[in-house]
Structure formats: C-alpha cells, structure tokens
C-alpha cells in the first residue's frame, strides 16, 4: 500500500515538473525600429523591476517575488523563444502629415505633392485600413478646434476617395487640439499642430 502511495507521489511529481508547475513569465526589451531604446517596468505584488537596456530581460517565477534582476538575452535565445511571434510582426504603419494653407481649405504645395505617395503606399501595402485624423493647435475653443479638424479630415478623405481609394478603407477621426506634435499652452497658434495625419496600416 505504502509503495503504491510512493509511486503515485513520484508520478505526480514528475507530471508537475514537466507540465510547468514552475511557471515563468519573461519580459524582454527590444530596441525600437528607429534604433532608440524605451523602457519597460514589470511589477509583482512584491515590487517593480525596470528594464532599460536593449535585449535585456526580467523573469517572474511567482507573483510573490520581485522580478529578477535584468540580464542580457542573446539573440539566439530570443529567436528560439520568440522567432514565430517576431516573424508575424506587421510592418509598422506609415504616417503622412498634411498641412493646409493658412485659413484655407486647400493643402500647401508640399502637402499636395504627398498625395501620390499616399496612394502608392496604400496600393503597395494592399492596405484596407487607413485613418485620416485631423488636428489643430490650441488657438480657439476645444470644441471649435474639434469641428475644424474633423472638417479638414473629411476634406482629405474625399480627396483620397476621388483619387480611387475605397471609402470603406478610410476611417475619419478628429483629435482637435489634444494630440499636438509640438506641445504648447492653451490658446497658442502653432502651424505645426494644424495638420491632418493619414496613417496607412
């Protein structure tokens, strides 16, 4: 009887060690596509570990332990574990920024010249997901700016549709003054913030 119990214990032990009774969560920081390096923080009940060096990883084996000291993960190990996920990473979206002539509903000459690039990018990527988002500076009320940026985004949408892009692929939105390129205080005129961004995904 005792022998059976021992046997069961053994089988149980083996089963748990194989089936991942010792769980592990791994977090790896990678350099951004432009080469810059950001930062991740990993937090458990017991504390936080910040990873700020490229290809460094921290591991967590229990919610009751502080995440491990970050250590470098070599390229081979990253590929072994994450190769398939990395292969499936979509090409990051491309954003075109269009500017309007001051106080007018027409684009500046430079921005007008970007339209063919936008069209060819949509075709090359076979994109079915393009967003057209209007932005303003902080001059005037938030509500006014929201309406103005929506109006301009709609103008660009219509322009793209008139050049043969399926309207169903285009999503129009307006961020008003809340998503500036150049952060400013309220009621500041900033031409760089008055724009429509076309993002091809």
């Amino acid at each position, binding site marked *: 009887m005792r022998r059976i119990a021992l046997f069961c214990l053994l089988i149980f032990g083996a089963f748990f060690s194989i089936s991942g009774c010792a769980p592990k969560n791994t977090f790896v920081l990678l350099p951004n596509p432009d080469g810059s390096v950001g930062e991740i923080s990993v937090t458990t009940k017991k504390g936080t570990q910040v990873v700020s060096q490229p290809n460094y990883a921290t591991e967590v084996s229990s919610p009751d332990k502080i995440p491990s000291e970050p250590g470098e993960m070599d390229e081979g190990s990253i590929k072994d574990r994450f190769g398939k*996920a990395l292969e*499936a990473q979509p090409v990051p979206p491309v954003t075109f920024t269009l500017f309007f002539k001051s106080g007018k509903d027409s684009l500046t000459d430079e921005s007008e010249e970007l339209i063919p690039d936008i069209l060819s990018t949509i075709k090359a990527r076979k994109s079915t997901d393009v967003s057209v988002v209007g932005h303003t500076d902080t001059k005037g009320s938030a509500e006014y700016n929201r309406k103005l940026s929506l109006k301009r985004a709609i103008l660009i949408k219509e322009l793209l549709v008139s050049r043969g892009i399926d309207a169903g692929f285009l*999503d129009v939105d307006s961020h008003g003054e809340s998503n500036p390129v150049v952060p400013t205080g309220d009621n500041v005129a900033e031409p760089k913030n008055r724009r429509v961004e076309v993002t091809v995904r």
Partner: protein
Amino acid sequence: MKRWFVFCCVFFLYAVPCSATDKDVAGVINNVNGTATVERSGQVVEAVTGNKIYQKDILQTGPDGSVGVIFRDDTVLSMGPDSRIAIDEFLYSPADGKLSFVSSVSKGTAAFLSGKIAKLSPESVRVETPLAVLGVRGTRFLVAVD
C-alpha cells in the same frame, strides 16, 4: 401605438449596434499563419486578414499559428504559436481624453511595438500576465508566459 412600439424596437435594433461600430474598432488583423481564432462574446471564429478587432476580443493561436494585428493607435502586436491574448480594454479618443490599452497574455509569446496611447499617456498602457503587470514608455518588447 402598436406601430410606434414596433418602430421603436426596429429603430433601436439598428441604431444601437450601428452607433457601436467604427469608433469601437480597436484594430485590424494584418496577417494570419496556420490556425488562429478570435473569441467575441463567447463565440469563436477563425481569424482572417482584414477582419476588425474590438476590445474584449480574445485572440488565440494553435500549435502552428501566428497572428499580427495593427491597432488604431498604431500599436503593432503579434503572437506566436499556442498563445492567448485578451484585449481587455482599448480606448483611443484623445479629444475626449479617453486613452487606455490593457491586454493580458495568458499563454504563449507576444511581440509588441507600442503606439500613440503609450506616447500620449504611458500610464494607460498595461500588459498583464498571470504573474506580473508590464508598463511601457514608448517601446518595443516581448512577453512569454510559460
């Protein structure tokens, strides 16, 4: 009276789901390899390139599967085989001050390239795993749950 009732019912039937469409789109599936599914309100459908993803959706891949998604805020997410990721909350409406991207990786591997939400409001981005919570500052990272 009865006619009004029917009218109202029909109106709401159409109006409610319609008003909950485009703005609620979190992202679009960019590529699928092998077996991959999307679970929405308890229903599981095959993941197809070009299909829209909404908050509360759960993406899952089979032993040979992988999926890539581009979100509306330009976050790029991909997952390897035998992986499961829930999009718990996705809000991208800067004009209303609504920004949030919470996802949870319950198994497998995932690669993230964070987008505009992380740029505008880093504290609103969170990736949860069974053992920890990850926060970001405009960055690219990997997560594995073993």
